[in-house]
Structures are given as C-alpha cells and as structure tokens.
C-alpha cells in the first residue's frame, strides 16, 4: 500500500479542482438551498461529471466504469468537498451502486450499472430507521412472506437523495428480532413500486434526504440483492465504502474551511495587527493543520485498504471516520470562532462548512461509534 497519489490520480485531482472552482462554487449550494430546489443538486452538473468519467470511477470497465477504485474516487470527492458540491455520489455511486456491484445479480447489475455510470439513473440505499442510530443491524422494517415473494412494511429515514432516486435498495428483515445479526435482506425497488411513498426531509445541510414509507410493497426473489437473510455483511461492506467516500469529502471540506480561515487570519486586523499574529490563534491553527494532515493519511490508507481488500480494511475505515469526524468538527468550530461575528451570519459561506461538517459527522456513525468498532474489531 503506497500512500502517495499516482500520476493518474494527480491528474484527476487537478481536473476535479478546476471543475469545482469553475462550476461549483459554494454560492451554488446557497442558491439551491434558497430556491428550496426539489432535487437539492444539479442534474446537469451530474451528467457533466458522468461525462468526465467520475461517476464510473469505482466500477469495472464492463459497466463502462474506469475501475480506479475508492483511491481514485476519493480525490474527486475531496475536490468536490472543498466547495460542498451536493451531487449524489454517496447515494448513487457508493450506497446504491456498490450494493448492486457487490451483491447484485447479473441481471440487476446490467439493468442498473451502465445507466448509472452514464449519469442517467440515480440510486440510493434505505437503511437507516428511527431507532437504529448507527447500528446497521437494527432493522425493524419487515419483509413478510407473501406467496413466492414478500411484502415490505416499515419506514426509513434520512435516505440520501431519496426523492430523486430511480431505484432504492431497501434493507428489510426476513427473519429475526429488530437487532438480530442475521435475517437481514436487501431488496432493489423501483421508485414507482406500488406502496412506496417518499417525503422530502430537510436537514441542516439542506441536501436531499427523504423519509421512505413502505406500505406493503410487493417484491420477489428477483429483487433480492445478495443472499436472503445474510444481507448484514453486505450492508456493512457497502456502508464502509460510502464511509470512505464521505471521509474524502470531509477531508476536502475541512481543508477548505481551514484555508479560508487561515486567509482570514492573515487579512483581518484588530488592534492594528493581523489577528493571525496572535500566538494563541497560531497554536490553534497549527493544531488544526496537524489534525488535517493525519486525516489525509487515514483517508488515503482506508481507500487503498478497501481497494486492495486487505484484512484490516474495516478497521482503517473506522480509523478514517473517527478522526475525520472529530477533526471536521474541530476545524468547523474553530473556523466560526476565528471568523468572529461575520462567521455567525448566514451571508458568510463559512457557516455552510459547519453545517455540512455536523451532518457528515453523524452520517455512517460518529467518532465514538467508530472507536467502539475499532476496539471491537481489534478484539477488546
């Protein structure tokens, strides 16, 4: 495992940074929010990103992908994270897309993945529930036997980009109690499935999330993703991949927030000197720099470990998420404080970083969850 960008990755990083600067300034996020945009992102930009090949990065060439793995995708997500671009990588490429890639039948893959890579189909994964917190095995949604198929009943919350997904992979329970490790099954649904209802949710980062109501949605054996009753492991692998993705995004966002704050420290004067000359602020800035550098190493390692399928990949994912969660909040909080009053205004962009940092922190498990997982996987 080499913790250094390849030439291809360097090029990708540069392209993505230029693209983000030109097409996706933070002002776009504000505009989408203020317009209460139904999608919460730009479908036009998404198609452009697909044309650039980014949507297909972690998919094999047989589906039109670039087969560049999470290591490749991370550099794009980091660049887009810098300007808080809300396009549906997490939902479509990582959650829904990886669920089908890792667990889907040939039929499911050929139906969805090529169009997904082209930017023509959006996918997502409905896994979180009212009581599940960060526990992936906590599933109350039930798949009740109905002839040769099942009927799905339950409710999912905060489903990423739920209202615009063409397909939703739903996590349901074919057997067992709410928190049983076994008995979890994933099903691929089309958005027009009878009994499926979506309602937009508004979180603090104003991205698209949705409540998903399943009122007796009929599914058959052909809709099962992976093996019946053994979806728990698949789900964990899928969410691990998405976790690497959100870490890369967080790395970009925290780097950008930090650099903007550094710029402010150099420019803003109080008592006749730049506030960046005050030693207390300098030391706090240096501490943040250190945290960000450590996050960068952890994110690179996690992406490569998953790509290489190494044994402790899951631990490295938890390492990355635990550290990125803490660092993102530290940097965001310090950014507001160091900007002073102006940082508290909605007019200033730095607040958008704080809001996204909080959402990202609490997505796929917070730092304490991942420390617990690190310890558990380490056998203590």
């Amino acid at each position: 495992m080499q913790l250094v960008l390849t030439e291809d990755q360097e090029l990708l990083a540069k392209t993505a940074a230029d693209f983000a600067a030109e097409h996706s300034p933070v002002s776009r996020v504000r505009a989408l929010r203020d317009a209460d945009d139904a999608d919460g992102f730009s479908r036009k930009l998404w198609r452009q990103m697909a044309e650039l090949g980014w949507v297909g990065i972690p998919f094999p060439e047989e589906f039109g992908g670039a087969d560049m793995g999470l290591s490749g995708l991370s550099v794009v997500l980091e660049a887009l994270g810098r300007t808080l671009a809300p396009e549906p990588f997490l939902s479509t490429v990582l959650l829904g897309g990886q669920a089908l890639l890792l667990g889907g039948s040939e039929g499911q893959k050929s139906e969805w993945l090529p169009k997904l890579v082209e930017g023509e189909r959006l996918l997502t994964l409905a896994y979180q529930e009212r009581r599940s917190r960060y526990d992936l095995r906590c599933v109350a949604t039930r798949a009740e036997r109905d002839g040769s198929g099942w009927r799905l009943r339950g409710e999912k919350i905060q489903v990423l980009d739920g209202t615009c997904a063409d397909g939703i992979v739903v996590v349901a329970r074919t057997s067992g109690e709410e928190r049983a490790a076994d008995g979890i099954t994933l099903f691929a649904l089309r958005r027009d499935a009878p009994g499926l209802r979506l309602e937009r949710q508004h979180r603090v980062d104003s991205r698209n999330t949705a409540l998903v109501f399943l009122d007796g949605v009929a599914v058959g054996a052909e809709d099962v993703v992976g093996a019946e009753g053994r979806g728990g492991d698949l789900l964990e692998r899928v969410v691990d991949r998405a976790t690497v993705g959100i870490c890369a995004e967080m790395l970009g966002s925290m780097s950008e927030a930090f650099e903007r704050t550094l710029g402010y420290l150099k420019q803003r004067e109080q008592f006749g000197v730049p506030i960046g000359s005050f030693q207390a602020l300098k030391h706090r800035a240096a501490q943040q720099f250190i945290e960000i550098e450590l996050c960068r190493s952890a994110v690179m390692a996690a992406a490569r470990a998953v790509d290489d399928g190494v044994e402790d990949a899951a631990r490295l994912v938890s390492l990355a998420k635990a550290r990125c969660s803490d660092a993102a909040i530290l940097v965001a909080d310090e950014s507001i404080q160091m900007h002073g009053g102006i940082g508290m205004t909605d007019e200033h962009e730095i607040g958008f970083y704080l809001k996204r940092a909080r959402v990202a922190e609490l997505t796929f498990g917070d730092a304490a969850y991942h420390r617990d997982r690190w310890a558990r996987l380490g056998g203590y």
Partner: protein
Amino acid sequence: MAELDEFRAQTRQWLKANAPEAITGLALTEGGGNWGGRRATFEPPEMKPWLERMAERGWTAPTWPREYGGGGLSAAEAKVLQQELARLRLPLPLTGFGLTMIGPTLLHFGNEEQKREHIPKICRGEIRWCQGYSEPNAGSDLASLQTRADRDGDDFVINGSKVWTSYADLSDWIFALVRSDPKAKKQEGITFLLIDMDSPGVSVSPIGLISGKSPFCETRFDDVRVPVRNAVGAIHGGWTVAKALLGFERNMIAEVFGGQARGGGQGRGSVLAELAREYLGDAGGALGDPVLRDEIARCELDERAFHLTVQRARDAAKAGHQPGPESSLFKVYATELNKRRTELMVRIAGPHGLGWQGAGFADDEIGRTRGWLRARGNSIEGGTSEIQLNIIAKRVLGLPD
C-alpha cells in the same frame, strides 16, 4: 422596618386594584415582555393599561428620580415592589435598552436638557432604544470604529454603518458611537450620540444567522444629520461614556448567568440524562451508551461547579467581601459551557439531531439544532472568549503584555 411594611401593604393593595386580571400569571420569557416604543404591540392588550398605570406611578423605573418620571423609591422599597410583583405573579410592565442601558447612562452623563427630553419617554415606554456600537471592521477592537460624524454647523453628518444592532428594526432611537475626530488617537476622537431613527438616511436591514432569523440588524447612516446637542458627555469624549455603559451591559450579562445558575443544576433531575434515555435507552438503570454517559456527567459536573462558583461570588458579596477574581471567568466559562452543552444534545440525538425543518423531525429536535448553531455565537458576542482570557491573564494573573 415598620415603614417598609407599610409600603408593602400599600403596594400590594395598589397592585391588586390596578393590575388587569388578564396579565396575572404571565411569564416573561427572554426577548418577551413589553418593549414599548412607537410601534409597540401589547400582548395581551391589557398590557397597555398596565403599562400606563405603572408608568403613572413611576414604577416602570422604580428607583429613578420622580422629576424625570421615575418612582423615586429607595433600593429597599424597589425590592419590595419586585417581591410583590412576583408574589402576585405580575409581569414587568416594561423592559428594554431604555431602562437597562441608555437611561442609567443619561442619568449619569446626560445634561439636564437631555434628561428632560428622553428619560420621561423611556419611563412611559414611548420610545424604544437600540445600541449602535459594533461595526463590520471593528469587532473585538471596538475603539477602531469608523462611522464618521462630520461637523456641519450645529449638526453632525453621519456616514457609516453599525452591525449587531439588536431590534434596530423595531426601535425609535439609537445611541451610537461615532468618530468625530478622525485625526485624534483612536479612543480620543469618539462621540456618544443619540440619533432619531426616523431621520432621513437611516436604513435598517436584518442580519440572518447560521441558526436562522435573529433580532440583529445592520443599521446604515447615509448623510444623516444629527444635532450636536445630542452628544452625551463631551464631544470627542464618548469613549468614557461607552466604557461606563459597557459596565452596565456586563452587569446585565452577569445577571443572566446568575439567573441560569439559580435555575439549573441543583436538583437530581438531569435534562441531558433524560434526553439521552430517550435516544439511547437504558441498560440496567444506566444509560445505554456508557461513553456518552461519561460525557453527560462531565458536562453536568462542569455546570454544577460553575453554578457553585456563581453562588460563591454571590455569597462573598453578601458577606461584604470585595468581588474576587472568580467573577472574571463567568462570561467565558458560561458561554463555552453552553456551546458544549448544545453540541452534546445534538450528538445525543444522533441522526435526529440534524433536523432543520419539516418532516421527520420533532419540533424540539429542530429547536436543538438551531440552539446548537446559535450558541456558536455566545463565545463571540459581548467580548470573545479570547478577549476574556486575555483579560484574565492580564488583570487577574498579572501576566505581562
């Protein structure tokens, strides 16, 4: 003592006779109450006669001199009045920056003409005041303000803008610091000026915060003419007045913390623990998540220790001691603690702590999200934590510059 008892009896009788029944038992929540002014709204409508009757006796400003519309009460009598209002569960008839800030300032620094013009209107709640100190480029370095006041005959011509003017959109007059002598050293060219906000050239726009709407405004002055006689204290000598007024403000802030201290943390019930039980469940009587439980205990311990410190300062004052160094920590500690507490509440709620509005989130969840965001400003407004720590290091610990 007998006189006080007599006063108490009369007061009680008068209050019973004059307080409209509709206002009995009204709690005065923060930012609530009756702020008066030209655009005053009375909710319930009976607040209007209540204000009028109290103002007539001077009891909107019980200790101020009668000649300017105050009640002329002694401190002891004012305390009795307060106790009787509390006993009968009656709301204060009037609140606002007139009573708490500019009134005391004018009584101390104003000339006779200014007192006669402004104090009675404050007492009657006819004029609502706001404060114009901060500027976009000043921040912690308040004295570096740049709003210009150019002398033109008997007027100053004001140009510039003030930020964080709370409720400027609802206020009638503003007391502001302006730079009347740009050549003087920065503290020495400032004038403290009273400005009618109906003057041509004054414009107000609200400031949205990361937590949503706020009472804060930006107030702009474009060639606003203000009579020179509206200067309080000496021309170019406004910094002295401003510092004194900041003193009043600090007292208010200390009062707020004192109030919090009186309210919270003493009983066995724990708001944080109840919240955590809701979201994390419970295992054998203890919270389901032992790590968050430890953090909750940590936060509670810090709160209790802080409240005990406020109490200690109060007990020392009661015992006749000079204020000790402990009071210097109130602002920074209370605000940093509130930041931690509001953040902890969001983390306890987990994914449910992310709600901004609408479906899938309970109102109190959304309230906590907004509360967390709003609290980020606590360590900035009213003197940043960094400034507070500088002050402790210098004034309390005697560390060199």
